[in-house]
């Protein structure tokens, strides 16, 4: 299906994450971004999506989220659909999301149909590799994917419940305007309980830094 009208040319291809940024100066509506945050109850999915929309709103963008958490307290799936830009509804269609943030590996597979061709996905998993079939699929759909052991990062910092922060840290390394490292940090300071802020920021920073090394290893793999 065609790309969203009004989107910056080529900007939904994240192949060059470091250099191609959304150019928000072109006006409020230049940036139409659809993000799916998926996980299970207790993984902080809703907090993560709150931080994303609040960051966008602070930057003067229109942002909305639609949450599905029917039985999440009982271990069920949690999906938060986020749309930033000139949209009327917060709902996302099949193969329409630019970004899929999977806070849990199984939810990555379950929500993969949301991701558009050329999209980006970040998966919280202890795996180093995805299965050959999935890898082939992602390649065919020109999906850029990153596997991050966010649980391990959070555990290392003694904050088992904060893997969502490591995910956000990594996401901020994509540097999609306005979701820069600094902007997201600022929102975390406002949205996270005061006594947990510093610890959460530590996990966030660790996630951000692991993105840097990831970039290198990804590059060297390509060579």
């Amino acid at each position, binding site marked *: 299906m065609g790309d969203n*009208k009004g989107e910056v040319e080529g900007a939904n291809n994240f192949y060059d994450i470091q250099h191609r940024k959304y150019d928000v100066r072109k006006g409020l509506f230049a940036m139409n971004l659809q993000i799916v945050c998926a996980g299970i109850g207790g993984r902080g999915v809703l907090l993560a999506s709150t931080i994303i929309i*609040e960051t966008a709103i602070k930057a003067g963008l229109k*942002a909305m989220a639609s949450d599905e958490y029917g039985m999440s307290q009982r*271990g069920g799936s949690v999906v938060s659909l986020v749309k930033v830009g000139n*949209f*009327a*509804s917060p709902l996302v269609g*099949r193969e329409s999301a630019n970004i899929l943030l999977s806070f849990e590996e199984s939810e990555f597979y379950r929500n*993969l*149909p949301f991701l558009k061709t050329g999209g980006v996905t970040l998966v919280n998993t202890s795996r180093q590799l995805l299965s050959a079939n999935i890898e082939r699929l992602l390649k065919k759909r020109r999906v850029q994917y990153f596997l991050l052991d966010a649980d391990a990062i959070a555990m290392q910092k003694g904050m088992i419940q904060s893997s969502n922060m490591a995910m956000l840290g990594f996401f901020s390394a994509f540097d999609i305007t306005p979701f820069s490292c600094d902007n997201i940090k600022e929102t975390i300071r406002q949205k996270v309980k005061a006594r947990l802020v510093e610890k959460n920021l530590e996990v966030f920073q660790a996630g951000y830094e692991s993105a840097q090394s990831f970039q290198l290893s990804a590059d060297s793999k390509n060579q």
Partner: protein
Amino acid sequence: MREVMIGNFAIARGLVEAGLELAAAYPGTPSSEILPGIIEFKNREKLAIHAEWSTNERCALEVAFGGALAGRKAACMMKQVGLNVAFPPLLHGYAQPLKGGLVIVSCDDPGPQSSQTEQDTRLLAAHFGIPVFDPASPGEAGDIAYYAMKYSCEHKVPVIVRSTHRVSHARESIELFVPGSRKVKLDEGLKLKGKGRIGIVTSGMTCSITMDILDELNLGDKISLYKVSRVFPLGTEVIGFVNQQEKTLVLEETDVTLEALLDHGFKVLGRRSGHVPSAGELTYDIVRDIICRFANDHGISVPEFNADTSIEDALKEIQIAPRPPKLCAGCSHRASFYAMKSAFPDAVFPGDIGCYTLGISMGAVDTCLDMGGGVTFASGFYDTFAQDGTLKPILASVGDSTFFHACLTPLYDSVLKKRRFVLVIMDNSTTAMTGLQPTPQSGISADGTSTYSIKIENIIKGFGIEFLRIVDPYDIPLLLRTIKEAYEYLETESAGPAVIIARRECLLFSKIREEDTRDMARLVAECTGCKICIKTFDCPGSYFDEEKKKICIDEGLCIRCGMCYYACPTSDEGKSLKELKKVRNEKKRREGREDSKK
């Protein structure tokens, strides 16, 4: 000032800004957050608003009605099936001129996602001539709540605001005004003017989705779009719109309401013409398909969306863990159901509405109709079996909030009729399913202040029920014995219903006490790999490791309540339970022999 909030809070804000004075609600997804929102804004603005959790929706509506008749600005909130409970006062009362204002917020559940049925509040409202509004976003929901209160005061009639889960649970930035100063103009009318002669009439979140899709498909200048906010009474302008079009497609949730009100024969397409599925949520993908077909059928060519099925092909090899909703790890309901099922595996198990409906997966809930249905179904089953001259074990389960909501009437009815069934009241001291609202037993009001506590056992005693036991469900052997004792009681001449209160706090509400925890190492050490506990108990706190061929404890979830020991046939606890079961089986066999002798 602006603030990001969910639709339900936006509704609360709109009502508070409109001068709300009295609010009553019964919790139910997706409406439960509105009353807490009202309390939040009341506290922030230091206003004197009476806000309460009512015992059920009918109480909520009547309390609000009373307030409105007496000149207050009142509101009540509930979910769509809750409106059924409030039906009698709605039907008899809507024609009474109000001195104040009355806004009824009813949240629909297209899908349905957390209800027994879909249901369209707008249909009911239109049918009985009650004005009804259908907001398309959280922001508009706030505006409409405000507008509806003014509308009600002006016209002296009750007004319904219909939300859906996609509006109630969506979040966006909402502007906050000083109470009384919001300016609202109904956002209704022609939104897109297309060159062609086809149009769409739509309302609610479906309207927002439709706008996004017309944008995505570049159809904004080809198909006209008319947005409706007040579904009843429907404005005349929209009729003019339909008259101008060759064909009009109606997109709405959840039933045929706008479509029926427009009623232009073959000119209007929708559910009745088969262009829109007759049930289920109108998701983004479904609406996109409908619009593609509609456009292509009328000479506007758009590429159909073809799903890339290679995604599903590649996912085939992946075992995506199914995540059926489950009772929490260590939930006392699981223990209760296990005892019930162990005591009488072949019993009939009428169930009710709450977390404990999940007992279905343990085979300890057979029916789930509506609030209170646990007791009334038990009654119907008993009467049926009694007619046939048999006393079949009937083990009904209801929760504590449900008990107060709808079980009192059917229960004393059953006392009068001497119906012999066992009623297990699963009392976890809260309304857990919808977010831990207090029950009449909690001794807490909606705003956290303390009040009387009505004890369930006092009601049971007051009804004259002879068999009443209060048991901690964590004591599975005791609960099992008690259930059997109850059944023995039912076999005596003068019996009526037997009631067991299985009492232990919800784990979302209070942590397990240290002295109640067990060492779980023995379970793993002695495990023979039979998987029986997985089949019969299925606590998320443990899982079966296929490589080690052993049960494993999920340290993150397990609360070490030790209940699963009873489900394991190799453990001492499991064996002791087996002994208990055997006693009964022997007794049954003996009886069987006596029966055949007769």
